[in-house]
């Protein structure tokens, strides 16, 4: 019964998507560990880490698609939730360093010793415990989103106004986290991590496991998102997106629906950030840059807004392109390419890769149906 519902929830696209993830979970460890280094099939650890990073972006894009694609909330501040989750993880990793820091202080992270702080600020307590830190990974962005959304949605701030104030939100966070006395390492952020749950962060095995966990998280987030958008609540969200005031006149509390999906999406973004930090080894305030958050939007737009799978694919495609560009001779032209991507996608491919493909297939099918109809029944 439950499996039936689960399968009914997934469309063909979703099944392929989950199938690919499953295949990756099985294949990547084999290609990384079993296949010898010299082989052309061998997947080196740096590549595993790079893919892990892309997958974190994919989760972030999925989170954004849930609010933008289905509820019409264009958040230009999802980078802030991502970064908050990342900071929560970073704080755990900092506490794990213990006395191995440069100043060898068993409690205080190096930057606090450097700033001459005598004791741990109150909000750093508890982060030495992994479960607490993981709770904060979800709660910190979730709470921010809830409070912000509670104000914003209740007073019916919509459309571009909402976008602009989400951007102001992440900008304010950027300024705040740059300050040394905020207690998050200021400009340099949190880095020089040693180990996670006792395993060294840098080791090949840890990296592989983190990659697999990210894959798993992506799959779970996708299933959760899919469950929401296929439920009646998901239909309400689409109704809100397309005709907000009409939905209200039907008796739905639009602000509650928005608040629910916005908070959930922020938690997803936080999770993505938490998985991202141990894999890249650093979290600093630049993650709050408004530009970062807008870039997430273009991932979703390229892949296809309101398709979930498209968002994840868009994130991976754009970042693949970014890596290719910025590591080669083309580096100075990356921003031209990214800028052009923004313009061209909105002008010529508003439905993104997935949407355009689906549209093309739909047209072909309709043609086939029309042809079939024409041959059997005469026109009315």
């Amino acid at each position: 019964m439950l499996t039936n519902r689960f399968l009914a929830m997934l469309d063909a696209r979703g099944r392929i998507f989950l199938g690919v993830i499953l295949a990756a979970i099985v294949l990547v460890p084999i290609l990384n560990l079993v296949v010898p280094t010299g082989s052309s099939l061998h997947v080196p650890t740096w590549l595993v880490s790079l893919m892990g990073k892309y997958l974190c972006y994919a989760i972030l894009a999925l989170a954004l698609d849930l609010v933008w694609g289905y509820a019409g909330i264009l958040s230009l501040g999802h980078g802030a939730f991502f970064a908050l989750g990342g900071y929560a993880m970073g704080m755990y990793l900092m506490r794990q360093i213990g006395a191995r820091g440069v100043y060898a202080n068993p409690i205080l992270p190096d930057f606090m010793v450097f700033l001459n702080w005598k004791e741990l600020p109150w909000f750093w307590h508890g982060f030495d415990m992994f479960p607490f830190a993981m709770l904060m990974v979800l709660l910190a962005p979730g709470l921010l989103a809830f409070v912000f959304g509670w104000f914003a949605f209740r007073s019916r701030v919509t459309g571009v106004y909402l976008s602009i104030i989400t951007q102001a939100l992440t900008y304010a966070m950027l300024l705040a986290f740059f300050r040394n006395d905020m207690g998050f390492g200021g400009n340099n952020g949190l880095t020089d991590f040693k180990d996670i749950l006792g395993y060294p962060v840098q080791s090949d095995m840890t990296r592989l496991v983190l990659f697999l966990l990210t894959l798993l998280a992506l799959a779970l987030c996708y299933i959760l998102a899919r469950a929401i958008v296929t439920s009646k609540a998901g239909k309400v969200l689409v109704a809100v997106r397309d005709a907000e005031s009409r939905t209200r006149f039907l008796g739905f509390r639009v602000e509650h629906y928005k608040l629910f999906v916005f908070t959930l999406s922020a938690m997803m973004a936080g999770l993505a950030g938490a998985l991202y930090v141990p894999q890249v080894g650093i979290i600093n305030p630049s993650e709050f840059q408004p530009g970062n958050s807008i870039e997430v939007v273009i991932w979703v737009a390229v892949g296809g807004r309101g398709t979930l799978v498209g968002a994840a694919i868009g994130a991976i495609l754009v970042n693949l392109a970014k890596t290719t560009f910025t590591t080669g001779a083309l580096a100075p032209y990356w921003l031209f390419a990214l800028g052009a991507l923004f313009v061209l996608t909105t002008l010529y491919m508003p439905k993104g890769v997935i949407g355009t493909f689906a549209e093309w297939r739909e047209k072909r099918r309709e043609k086939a149906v029309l042809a079939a109809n024409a041959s059997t029944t005469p026109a009315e």
Partner: protein
Amino acid sequence: MELKVTDYLLYLDGVSVAFDGFKAINSLSLTIEPGEMRAIIGPNGAGKTTMMDIITGKTRPDTGDVLFDGTVDLTQLDEAAIANLGIGRKFQKPTVFEMHTVEDNLRLALKGDRRVFSTLFWRDSTPEREKIDRILDTIRLGHLREASAANLSHGQKQWLEIGMLLAQDPKLLLVDEPVAGMTDAETEATAHLLKEIAKDHSVIVVEHDMAFVRELDCKVTVLHEGSVLAEGALDHVSADQRVIEVYLGR
């Protein structure tokens, strides 16, 4: 038990609202009996849509009382709360959820628990499906059940919206220009349908089309410059000198 202030289903008294100094509604008083059907006519800018906005909570009046069911002060509630009290509204420009199928449009409108977590864990049920089937029959869209609402014709969208009103099963229906853009045959069918609905609901219809209003055969209220100009049977008000002036005089 709250004391009923009035027996009327809807009771407006001395309602005024101004936008930037312009009085859209000027000390308007209007009462609707339970089970009554009422047509509201009036020239452009008479305040018909603003009156609907006030009843449904979209606009707050500056002064005046708006009571529903004799007990509930509608000026204190928002759109969703008013809708859940049992006031349904059809807009002048048909607004349906274009991305959803006809069936889903009705399903969303269907009376039921509207809270987030109950819709999240909502399951399809037979009585619900049967009710949707009945409404689809009534609005003659059964064959388009799976079609996306965006692909409906203008008249079909009008009917779908009326169907959504039926699914909501409200005590009071506010219907804004239901036959705009309809063919004569469709108009006649719509009048028939509304009369059918009015048997067990209160209905307020705002309309320009005099033939249609005549078809409805109910009490008529003429609005002008935000207040009631005349009230009574259609023949009675159309003989009223002031009404003629307002419609033809200028």
